[in-house]
């Protein structure tokens, strides 16, 4: 199983887990399995069409999936998939 790194803003939807082991052969399978396991993550991670939201980057190991094969990027069991959203300080409004 690959390791998925959950960013702080999404941890409230993963029972505060920061690292989750998820099985899947490519990024789309990993995301689908993550969302299956933690349904509340879906609307924050994916837009209504099922694409990863444009203020969220997904990296497989060090590389942006946009420079690999996007959702079809192959994932190994030792891969680390990082979900990195835009954050902008801790100011409440």
């Amino acid at each position, binding site marked *: 199983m690959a390791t998925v*790194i959950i960013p702080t803003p999404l941890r409230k939807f993963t029972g505060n887990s920061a690292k989750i082991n998820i099985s899947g052969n490519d990024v789309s399978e990993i995301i689908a399995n993550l969302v299956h396991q933690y349904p509340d993550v879906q609307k924050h991670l994916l837009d209504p069409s099922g694409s990863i939201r444009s203020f969220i980057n997904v990296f497989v190991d060090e590389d942006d999936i946009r420079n690999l094969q996007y959702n079809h990027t192959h994932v190994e069991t030792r891969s680390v998939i990082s979900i990195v959203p835009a954050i902008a300080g801790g100011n409440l409004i």
Partner: protein
Amino acid sequence: MTQNTLFSKEELARYNRHIIIPGFGMEAQEKLKKSSVLVVGAGGLGSPVLLYLAAAGVGHIGIVDCDVVDDSNLHRQVLFGIEEVGIPKTEAAKKRLLSLNPHINITVYNTQLTSQNALEIIGGYDVVADGTDNFPTRYLVNDACLLLNKPNVYASIFQFEGQVSVFNQLNDQGVRGPNYRDLFPTPPDPGAVPNCSEAGVLGVLPGIIGSLQALEVIKVITNVGDTLSGRFFTFDALSFESRTFNISKNPANPVNGENPTIKELIDYEQFCGVKAIEKPLKEVSPTDLQDWQEQGLDFQIIDVREADEYDYVNIGTELIPLSTISASGGTIDRNTRVVVMCKSGVRSAKAIRILEDKYGFNNLYNLEGGIINYINELELDLPTY
């Protein structure tokens, strides 16, 4: 013996530990003195950035901030002390930095950076350090730096997590590196991510991340080492894990991609959906609410902040966090006035929209300025944050 004319004897003594570093030396120190850096935001990130850039001898530092020092800043904004509470941050910062290093120049802008003033302010500096706390200003700083061909040293924090990168830096081949819009083409919808309803920052985190930001500013100026241009650094204080990702340009970038569509600064609040509320809301001021209470009128008050905020300070209302409001229509009275409140009035406005759209409520009033305004207007002896 050659005499250095750029530095006084006192400066040479001050910067000695820089000058003797192999690979840094006098040449880098001279570049620092001849450089100018604009620090946008004199807050948690801006504090260490300003302190280290001033101490390092950056010749001209500009500071943009429109806030005054508040008690709630002091756990992380180490630039300030209790004697500065209530004073504009720019003024307090300038005084502190000149006491740290009188051999530098400081220019302050006690104003908000806007689409109207950004090009003029940023245009006067070599490097920008973005330490702001909101998405509209992030995109504004980014776009202004692209339009002016300035490097933008970026840092951002949230709770226990920090990010650092160097955007739009010119490399040795004359090519500029990726920027914020390459990475984040559009901002989060204010309602789509929990960035407003969850908040806070561990005080030491901006110290760590801001110090890294200062480091990258110094590297950009001196051309010593490899900066984070083309890379994106993240740090998780809880797990003590850091990661450095490779990032690249996006040909569809609307400002400097293959077919640019943005050629001047835009309305960034609109771009970020902050101005999304169009239909007028019914509002109630703190003094009106007090009148209603004194007149014994029948009404309900709902606080839509998170439980942690409510526990910190509340005015004895019901608590229905914004994240659960859309499932809570059944518990809200339809026959009396219902006042909805949050910290400053933004989340409560959103809650009212949700309740009106989903359940057809027409008896909801937004408390103007939230609990902070309520406490301040009525001069209550309650903490603010």
